[in-house]
């Protein structure tokens, strides 16, 4: 593992996207899943909310110059519900988002984020409202997420956040890109498989 893969802090300006249950079809419409690589996904997050049918920009935080360059996304409940498409976190990441702070995240979405080295951390409803208001009134204010301390700083304010221990560990130790870790256990996997009756088609 190289040092750069260890993610202990994310620091930057933030952008709020309000609303519960923001689904993956909204984050990235299915038609963009027809592209054969993730390379251009950064052009498409929230496409149908950001652009009209003629491609003209609409009012949306991702189009708003005051949030330009933001790397921390603030969201409400059950963000990323719906499809398993990794294109959704890929689109956000390639757009420039490197961490998401919210009230809660859908399971597959949060798992996909970790696999890409992007922390999803949770705070209370009151705290997210406080953060969103702070960012809306001062969009150039810098937020800093410290995974070691499980603490988020916004100006003078320190807010403690939650993140599953395994996600935190994977990010901080750089094992979020876990193929090599899993692959090192291939012999163990083969042994475990050999004990499963269906792997031998139930032959007596």
């Amino acid at each position, binding site marked *: 593992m190289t040092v750069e893969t260890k993610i202990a802090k994310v620091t930057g300006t933030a952008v709020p996207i309000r609303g519960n249950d923001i689904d993956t079809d909204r984050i990235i419409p299915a038609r963009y899943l027809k592209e054969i690589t993730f390379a251009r996904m950064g052009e498409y997050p929230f496409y149908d909310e950001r652009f009209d049918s003629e491609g003209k920009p609409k009012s949306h935080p991702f189009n708003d110059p005051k949030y330009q360059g933001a790397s921390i996304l603030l969201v409400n409940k*059950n963000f990323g519900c719906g499809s398993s498409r990794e294109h959704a976190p890929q689109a956000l990441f390639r757009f420039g988002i490197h961490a998401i702070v919210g009230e809660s995240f859908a399971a597959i979405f949060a798992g996909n984020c970790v696999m890409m080295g992007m922390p999803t951390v949770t705070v209370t409803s009151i705290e997210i409202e406080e953060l969103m208001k702070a960012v809306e009134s001062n969009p150039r204010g810098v937020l800093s997420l410290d995974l070691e301390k499980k603490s988020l700083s916004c100006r003078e304010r320190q807010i403690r956040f939650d993140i599953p221990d395994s996600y935190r*560990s994977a990010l901080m130790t750089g094992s979020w890109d876990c*193929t090599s*870790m*899993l692959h090192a256990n291939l012999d*163990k996997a083969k042994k475990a498989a050999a004990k499963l009756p269906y792997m031998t088609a139930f032959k*007596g």
Partner: protein
Amino acid sequence: MAKGSGRTLYDKVWESHTVDILPTGQTQIFIGLHLIHEITTAPAFDMLREKGLKVAFPERTFATLDHIVPTDMRARPFLDSQAEELTQALEKNTGQFGIQFYGLDSDRQGIVHVIGPQLGLTQPGMTLACGDSHTSTHGAFGTLAFGIGTSQVRDVLATQTLAMDKLKVRRINIHGALSAGVYAKDIILFIIRRLGVGGGKGFAYEYGGSVVEKMSMEERMTICNMSIEGGALVGYVNPDEITFAFLKGREFVPKGEDFERAVAYWSSIASDPDAHYDDVVDMEASEIEPTVTWGINPGQAVGILEKLPDPERCSDPEGAKRAYEHMGWKPGSPILGTPINVAFVGSCTNSRLSDLRAAAKIAKGRKVHPAIRALVVPGSAAVKVLAEKEGLDRIFTEAGFEWREAGCSMCLAMNPDKLKGREICASSSNRNFIGRQGSPGGRTILMSPAMVAAAAVNGKIVDVREYV
């Protein structure tokens, strides 16, 4: 029940598939069956090549085409060059890595969640992963089945394992008996409405109770399919005689004495009678009406005779307001009588033979309303053949439905089957998200296949109980 000391199916399958505890604290889980399709896999194969890795267990992965498949003109090359490119990539990748591929020329092609069970690939007591959130469908067999992202597809290809955290288990009992005109789809919409679209977060849902115990496998698949719409990564039903009878004789199911041994194993992995559950929820089937969605997520649903809710009385008032804004409707209006433009019977939720029979029963001898575009898309090539043997295709075409080839079609509109503009679609699919059916302004009303057929012939939402 929650206080028992026995183990759930989830506990047993998790333990039997545990390879190791990883340094992160996650568990490395062996994946018994991996299903892939053309959309979420191409970058995973690219990552394998970049890392110089092989597919560890090529015989445990099966591939088909479903998401982008045109359901009318299937001649190659496809008119959509991106669809053609993805298809060629899957053909190349499966060939290069030695993976079984069921393409359009195969009688085994179809929606990945329809063909797994149909071929007997899906079996009780397995772990099953696929780059599609509706993989929970396979839980109907007592399989631990879940959707994964592309990086995880890469990990399964490279190692046949995943790094996972264990879930809690919520038992959901449906007591009593269903009345005529109420289907498995209505039950799962009712459950999601009751528990919320995020209510299942952190849980596997175990469905049981007298209603589920009497259900056919296809009905159980409909319920398990939409677990993820309730926020639950996994949904399952304990395997029983109905499960074993469904599996017997299928292509990949053991035969003869091996089948007997399989049944013994499958029986052993069911939840113990005194299993411990983290939560138990009880619901009465008599309370469940034909249920339809009115908003922009599957939890925004009402019984067919109810009025649309006051946003301030919804669990998420802002979300309800946004739904009204998109749908263009007013609180207090009836959903009954809502005019529709399109009717779609299909998707991994409701495209199996029993779904098509239920829709055909309503369509028989009737005509699709002249203003309505109606299509029936069977879930697999095999479902299509079986339906045609029974003459269901003729019932549909005589009524004015289009009878199509197998695929995901208008559930997510990655093929040419799309809504236009502000069209309203009565749909047997699983998501009513904004833009889901291919038009940013399009509107989706989820319901059972019989309700879709009844809406198609009336040109508006009706109560299917008047027809059964």
